[in-house]
C-alpha cells in the first residue's frame, strides 16, 4: 500500500495503520537526525518527529512525497534544537585549546588514508565542526551539512526543505563562506602558536 493510502486510513481513525509508516521510515529519519544532532539526541528527536507528524497528518495533502514531508519535520526539530542551544549560549568548547590545535595539525599533516579515516572520526572533529557551524544560523547549518558536507543533491535538499533550488544554493554558498572564515581563524591561531 502506498503512503497516501495509509495516511487516509489513519485519518479515518485507524491509528494502528500509522505503525506501517513508522516501520517504513524510522531508519530514514534516524539517519537524517543523526547527521545533524548529537548521538544522544537522535532517538528522542526521531520519536518527537513521528508524534508531531501524526498530529499534523491532516495538513499533509499529498502534494509532495510523504518521506520529504516527514524529513522536513525532522529537520525543523533539528533546527529548533540548535536554536535553543544558541539561546543558551553553550559555547564552552575552546577550539584554540591544545587538543583542538593538535587535531588540526594532524589533519594538515599528509597522513595515510587509513590514519585519515580514523582521525576524522575523532571527537575533536565533532567539536570543531559544532564550533564552526554555530557561527551560522540553524537553517543555514542544516543546508550546509546536507549539501556542502554530506553530498546530498541540491534538488533533494530543496524538495526536503520546501525551498527553491536557487535558494538552497545561495544559502549553502553563504554559509560555506562563513564557515571557511571561521576555519581560517583556527588556522591563523595555529600558525601564531607555531611562531612562538
Amino acid at each position: 500500500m502506498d503512503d497516501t493510502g495509509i495516511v487516509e486510513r489513519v485519518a479515518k481513525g485507524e491509528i494502528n495503520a500509522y505503525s506501517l509508516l513508522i516501520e517504513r521510515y524510522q531508519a530514514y529519519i534516524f539517519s537524517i537526525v543523526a547527521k545533524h544532532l548529537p548521538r544522544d539526541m537522535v532517538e528522542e528527536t526521531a520519536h518527537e518527529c513521528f508524534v508531531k507528524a501524526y498530529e499534523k497528518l491532516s495538513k499533509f495533502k499529498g502534494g509532495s512525497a510523504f518521506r520529504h514531508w516527514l524529513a522536513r519535520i525532522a529537520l525543523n526539530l533539528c533546527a529548533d534544537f540548535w536554536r535553543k542551544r544558541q539561546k543558551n549560549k553553550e559555547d564552552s568548547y575552546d577550539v584554540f585549546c591544545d587538543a583542538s590545535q593538535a587535531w588540526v595539525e594532524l589533519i594538515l599533516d599528509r597522513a595515510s588514508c587509513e590514519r585519515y579515516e580514523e582521525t576524522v572520526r575523532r571527537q575533536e572533529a565533532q567539536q570543531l565542526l559544532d564550533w564552526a557551524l554555530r557561527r551560522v544560523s540553524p537553517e543555514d547549518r542544516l543546508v550546509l551539512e546536507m549539501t556542502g558536507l554530506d553530498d546530498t543533491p541540491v534538488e533533494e535538499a530543496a524538495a526536503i526543505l520546501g525551498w527553491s533550488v536557487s535558494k538552497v544554493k545561495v544559502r549553502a554558498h553563504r554559509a560555506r563562506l562563513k564557515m571557511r572564515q571561521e576555519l581560517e581563524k583556527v588556522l591563523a591561531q595555529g600558525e601564531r602558536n607555531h611562531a612562538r
Partner: protein
Amino acid sequence: MHDDKTDRLEAALAAHVRSRRGPAPPALFTANVLRQVRTAELERTVQTLLLRAFAPFLAVVLAAFVLMVATLHDPAWSDIMFFSKIYSTGQSSLALWFIG
C-alpha cells in the same frame, strides 16, 4: 597556501559528517510512538467532549456578563429590557445546548 589548508580542514570535516552513523532504531520504537500517539488522541477526544459539554454554560455566563455591562452603562434601559434580555439569552443558550 592558506586556502589549501582551509580546503583540507573543510574536507576533513565533511568526511566526519559522512562517517557519522546514528544508532539503529530500537526494537520498541514503533510501539513507543504508537503509545504516545494513542495518548495524544485520547486527550484530544476528552478535550473536544469537555468543550462541547461546557460550551452552552460558557455562552450563558458570557451573555450574562455582556448584559451586566450593558445595564451598568445605562440603568434606565435595564428596568424593562433586563428580564426580556435574560429570557432571550436563555433561549439562545438552550438552542446552543441542543446544537452542542
